[in-house]
């Protein structure tokens, strides 16, 4: 399912003294099956963009097309439920949305709301739980008795059980330890590949964006300032640094190394593996240490 934002503006608390333009003239195309990262600092408007992706917010100007639904400014919308079933959102700290007595009931809550039968929903719950790396034995436990990391996974399972075509992730690893971080990110990546999901990752981590995304959108003060593939984006790292943005550690390392050793590699590398091969090759060609 394709999603596209065309010249979208969003104003919070319009017509009050607290009015604030959160995003301005944002145009983003998200073709089906893509892994896109939206990066920006706190307050750059990335979370506001995210909420347009399944019509939680309606643009105050411009339009958003989700599949064959078009959501325009100042227009009443119907049948938003079908959109919401197709576009699953994992909010920041999703464990805060748990409320049921048992893990199973919480996971099937979404599917049941979208009219899935109870037996089917329970089957989906089992599959989703496995996908997030938890065992069936916790199905009957109360979600509030689980550890923080487990709660997060249950909440994610609740979104996966809706079987969306598009999954939107808002800082899914916030507050997790480095290992949990990698596990969760790898899990989403394999889901993205296996189910051919469109994945939209909203994050401030350049590392994650460089590692997983096919396309990157950089936002600053409510505007899209840069769009492209990771290679395109990070090929001009100095420019990024000047914009006050971070570059992945690998890139930073490469720049420092080039500076120190006085050579230039043929391009910017985004993973440690690629970089180390390139550096070894360069060094074996002519040692200038």
């Amino acid at each position, binding site marked *: 399912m394709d999603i596209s934002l065309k010249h979208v503006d969003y104003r*919070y*608390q319009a017509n*009050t*003294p607290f009015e604030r333009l959160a995003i301005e003239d944002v145009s983003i195309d998200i073709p089906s099956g893509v892994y896109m990262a939206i990066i920006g600092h706190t307050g750059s408007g990335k979370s506001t963009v995210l*909420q347009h992706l*399944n019509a*939680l917010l309606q643009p105050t100007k411009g339009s958003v097309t989700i599949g064959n639904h078009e959501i325009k400014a100042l227009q009443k919308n119907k049948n938003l*439920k079908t959109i*919401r*079933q197709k*576009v*699953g*959102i994992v*909010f920041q700290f*999703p464990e*805060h*949305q*748990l*409320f049921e007595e048992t893990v199973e009931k919480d996971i099937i*809550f*979404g599917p049941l*709301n*979208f009219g899935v039968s109870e037996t089917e929903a329970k089957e989906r719950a089992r599959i989703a739980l496995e996908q997030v790396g938890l065992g069936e034995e916790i199905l009957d436990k109360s979600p*509030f008795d689980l550890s923080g990391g487990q709660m997060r996974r249950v909440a994610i399972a*609740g*979104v996966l059980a*809706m079987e969306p075509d598009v999954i939107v992730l808002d800082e899914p690893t916030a507050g997790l330890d480095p290992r949990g971080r990698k596990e969760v990110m790898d899990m989403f990546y394999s889901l993205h590949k296996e189910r051919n999901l469109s994945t939209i990752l909203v994050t401030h981590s350049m590392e994650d964006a460089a590692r997983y995304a096919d396309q990157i959108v950089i936002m600053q003060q409510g505007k899209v300032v840069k769009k492209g593939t990771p290679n395109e984006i990070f090929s001009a790292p100095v420019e990024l640094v000047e914009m006050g943005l971070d570059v992945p550690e690998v890139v930073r390392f490469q720049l420092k190394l080039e500076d120190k050793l006085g050579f230039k590699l043929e391009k910017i590398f985004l993973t440690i593996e690629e970089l180390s091969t390139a550096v070894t090759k360069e060094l074996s060609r002519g040692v200038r240490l």
Partner: protein
Amino acid sequence: MMDKMIFGRYVPADSMIHKMDPRSKLLIIFLFVCIIFLANNAATYALIGIYTFYMLGLSRVPVRFLYGGLKPVIWLVLFTLVLQLFFTKEGALLYQLGPVKIYEEGVRQGIFISLRFFFLILMTSLLTLTTTPIEITDGLETLLHPLKRVRFPVHEMALMMSISLRFIPTLMQETDKIMKAQIARGVEFASGPFKERIKAVIPLLIPLFVSSFKRAEELAIAMEARGYRGGEGRTKYRELSWKNADSLQMALLVLLTILLFLLRS
């Protein structure tokens, strides 16, 4: 949806009323609520009306916000008006339609009582529109200080008030966030049959309760960690200062009271 709640909210502006000491504002509102009952004829009501609108003008709060404060109570005002119209049976008969009789005194009472409501609401919303919640709490704490003699826990009350006021925006944000998360999971808060809508509140309330309790505990620990041990010997960061404007406004209110006594019938 939370964005539209303006009732009872502080509107920043640079005005004389905004700069006044919260103690004098609280006193003025309290006395105003008392003396408004002195009014009993056209002249006194007009006087109170002039005073109210003068204060509103001084505050420079846009009319839109005052309207926002009035909207929720407008039905109550209309209801009392109708009640007075139909059930007061004094004075000359003005109009009759079958069993419904409207008397002169009914019209008079109806209009007066509605006006009284109207002025009261305007003045009390003026307090919340021009004073931050923290100022109101500080003001109340100082004004109620004498009650300490009778072992009334003034400081604790004020602390409770400021904590709850402090967490209203947080709670609203949290509500908004959880609501959106549940909408994304297919809950419909705004449509569907009534029974379904009531049921839809559960996935909102439970997470809110859970997070509020957690937050309360964290706050208590954080306060203890910073050495909080009640109000004994505690000094204040924000000191209240009584200015000329405060004395002037108090004098104006006293003048109003005297005039009301002179003009009432």
